[in-house]
């Protein structure tokens, strides 16, 4: 613990600072320079090892990693766009580190949140007590395009709707973890978590050596077990499959990866057939029963009998077989209502309602404009807030106060007053940063975190998660489409 970390002091000397020579003083909460747990010795050690590398060396290793990804056919190529569909997140070599204590908070928070989401879904598709009690406005749920009336009264095994959940978490100036978004439909990205770790071990073995990092290998087994747990009762060795839209889907690489890790067949809709409300797959030995389906297909495409009649990707009769309890489907249909922005704002109240606990992880401070207080606050502070439309409208009609002109703000104020129920507002969060290899050397870039939770008989959270990094200087957008990359996420044991 000697001599305080303050690596921020500019001009601390290139020889001493090595990799961080150009890093300077991070303006935001830095994932590796500042620790809230005092000075964790392991973090210090990792930092020292990183300092021992120079930029040229790190670049050589990054190139080796890139070449490997290219040969694996899971990376951008310079030749044509068509090949870019598999791997969309460039890999940054410098890991993002979470201490055991930090992880404990995240893990408990994620488990709590997933539990509440599953309780919420059961409730709104059965008794709707939370609506009757007025905790969540009725029309917000029942009028939501992701609410599926077909799900009413369907008793899903073990009460689990969301078997796989991704929770998007950011860190603010003070280093607090805040939930930005829930992903309860078919969250993707977990393959990067595991592939990034493999890549890290191959390319930077000297950085990893001797440091206790929680392994990420278990994911496939856990997922397989969760699916087996929800398979119809009485089946001794349930046949699990992964249902993919096929090789042209942007996440096909991940589907392959997960099928391999789970040890189950990757099937497409045309491989499955429903007879007498039972699901079978077409094999060289004839039809073989299927008991649990991890589907990576949206609700709309799942079954042309129930949803989009023109779907070529789904399986006719699948939902009927499911309703009769002859097959399990993960995630369940109709979970989209729970990860909607409108519902997100109510999540702290939903947690308290079902679990009688305070949320372990807070939401980003969110005001609900359909409530008079929230609307007033939003109108008063419009120039400092991000105001987002809820429901299906996606990014359209969003305004970022600090970046808007006076005229734009005035115009938006009118829109907001006309339909306050359609908006929520949040402060602009200065996301934490992590050192990242950039063109000019190692620089600070904003990151977020998506841990993945698997729920069968109980909920398990993969240690770490996907750390996405905004590679563009100053950018807060970590999406792959906006120049985002990913990092290996280390949870110290």
């Amino acid at each position, binding site marked *: 613990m000697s001599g305080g970390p303050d690596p921020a002091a500019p001009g601390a000397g290139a020889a001493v600072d090595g990799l961080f020579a150009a890093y300077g003083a991070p303006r935001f909460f830095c994932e590796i320079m500042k620790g809230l747990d005092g000075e964790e010795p392991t973090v210090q050690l990792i930092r020292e090892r990183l300092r021992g590398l120079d930029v040229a060396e790190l670049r050589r290793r990054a190139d080796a990693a890139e070449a490997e990804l290219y040969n694996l056919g899971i990376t951008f190529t310079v*030749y044509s766009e068509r090949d870019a569909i598999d791997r969309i997140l460039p890999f940054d070599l410098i890991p993002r580190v979470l201490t055991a204590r930090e992880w404990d908070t995240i893990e408990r928070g994620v488990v709590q949140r997933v539990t509440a989401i599953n309780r919420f879904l059961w409730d709104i598709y059965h008794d709707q007590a939370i609506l009757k009690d007025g905790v969540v406005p009725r029309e917000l749920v029942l009028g939501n395009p992701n609410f599926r009336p077909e799900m009413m009264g369907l008793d899903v095994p073990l009460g689990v709707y969301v078997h796989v959940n991704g929770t998007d978490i950011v860190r603010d100036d003070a280093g607090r973890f805040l939930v930005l978004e829930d992903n309860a439909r078919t969250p993707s990205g977990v393959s990067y978590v595991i592939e990034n770790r493999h890549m890290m071990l191959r390319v930077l073995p000297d950085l990893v050596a001797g440091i206790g990092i929680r392994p990420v290998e278990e994911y496939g087994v856990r997922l397989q077990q969760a699916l087996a747990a929800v398979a119809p009762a009485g089946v001794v060795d349930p046949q699990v499959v992964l249902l993919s839209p096929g090789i042209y889907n942007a996440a096909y690489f991940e589907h392959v990866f997960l099928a391999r890790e789970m040890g189950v067949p990757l099937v497409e809709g*045309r491989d499955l057939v429903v007879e007498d409300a039972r699901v079978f797959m077409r094999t060289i*030995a004839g039809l*073989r029963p299927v008991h649990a389906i991890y589907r990576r297909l949206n609700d709309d495409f799942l079954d042309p009998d129930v949803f989009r009649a023109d779907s070529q990707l789904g399986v006719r009769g699948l939902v009927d077989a499911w309703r009769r309890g002859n097959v399990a489907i993960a995630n369940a249909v109709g979970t989209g209502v729970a990860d909607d922005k409108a519902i997100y704002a109510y999540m702290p109240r939903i947690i308290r309602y079902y679990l009688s606990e305070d949320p372990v992880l807070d939401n980003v401070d969110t005001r609900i404009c359909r409530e008079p207080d929230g609307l007033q606050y939003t109108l008063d502070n419009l120039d400092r807030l991000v105001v987002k439309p809820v429901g299906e409208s996606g990014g359209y009609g969003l305004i970022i106060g600090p970046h808007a002109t006076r005229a734009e703000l005035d115009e938006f104020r009118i829109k907001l007053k006309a339909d306050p129920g359609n908006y929520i507002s949040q402060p602009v969060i200065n996301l934490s940063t992590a050192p990242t290899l950039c063109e000019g050397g190692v620089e600070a870039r904003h990151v977020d975190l998506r841990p993945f939770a698997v729920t069968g008989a109980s909920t398990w959270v993969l240690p770490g998660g996907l750390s996405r990094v905004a590679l563009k200087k100053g950018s807060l957008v970590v999406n792959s489409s906006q120049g985002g990359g990913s990092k290996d996420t280390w949870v110290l044991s």
Partner: protein
Amino acid sequence: MGAVSGSVPGAPGSTAQAQALLSRYAENIVWLARYMERIENLARIIDVTETFTRTSQVENGWRSILQINADEAEYHASRQDADMQGVAEFYVLDTANPNSIASLINTSRENARTLRPLISTEMWTHINVFHNWVRQLTGEDIRSSRLSGLCARLKQECQTHNGIIEGTFYRDQGWYFYMIGKYLERGDQTTRLVDIKYHTLLPREAGIGSPVDISQWSAVLRSAAAYHAYRRVMPRALTAPAVAGFLLLNNASPRSLVLALRQVYGSLSQLRTDYGLRQGGIALERLEELRAALSDQTIEQIILRGLHEFLDWVQVELRHIQNDVADAFWSVAPTGQRAEPAAGTGMTQEMSGMTQSLGGMTQILGDMRQHLDTPRTG
């Protein structure tokens, strides 16, 4: 399973325990194997033709490749002379030609992508790297001074592929389907090679045993990796009938027709004995007949009765076997299912493949045509 005979010690369990292979995967495996084998054969034939035309004055050296593949019409639709530059471009680089190496590796990669859940990372990575390499080839790479080197590399990549398959492919049903596809293709390619070369090389002015004749037949043997073995086994004469006989009937030469059929037969038998997949019986019966026809007669008898007609019949039978395998393992509509509209049996790969790349589609349509042209007896 009570049956002991024929089961391999340590085979992956009884039928009940063996993980059932998806029909779609079986189909893709067969086609992947066929396409990779086709690439190697194409490289071999281009290589031998290049040697041919460089060392002797053969009138139709390059045209014979077009004849082997029945591609003359397609070739002349966009090109004039059947010369080295044109033919090499047509078969190596031209993605508009579904039978070019560029198209075949594209289709192979698509198949491998679909099979990615099943195949090893090494296998996938190699196909991907191979594909990337072929894609960057240009007209410079097929100039006469480089063509032979290029073919050597192509052969080497296919052999690497085979080595990786051998070393990493799990030996369950999928493996046998790979073998079926590979050897069906190889048998077919060998009959085409013999058919075309026998007729184009039969002596006209120059008498049998002339230097030209001999060098050309040695080149044919070389293209089938059979030259040295032939020399060793039959040191006395290098005659057209003897070479044709060696390539078709020799039961030890790795690219001979007889050996290819034995491999297909063995794989189908294993599927039956080890996995209880009895529906391969029809294909097995047909194979038995075909093998009997080959073992019952000498090459001299075959030639006397008409080599071309015989090889034609063999090719038709090989297509039948492919269709029998398709019918048995991936084309059967499940009970109670509505029939696939207008789709004949054996066409699912072709149909599904049609959503693949345009180049792949033309290839597949070609295969479908072949398929539909085949008179069906069962």
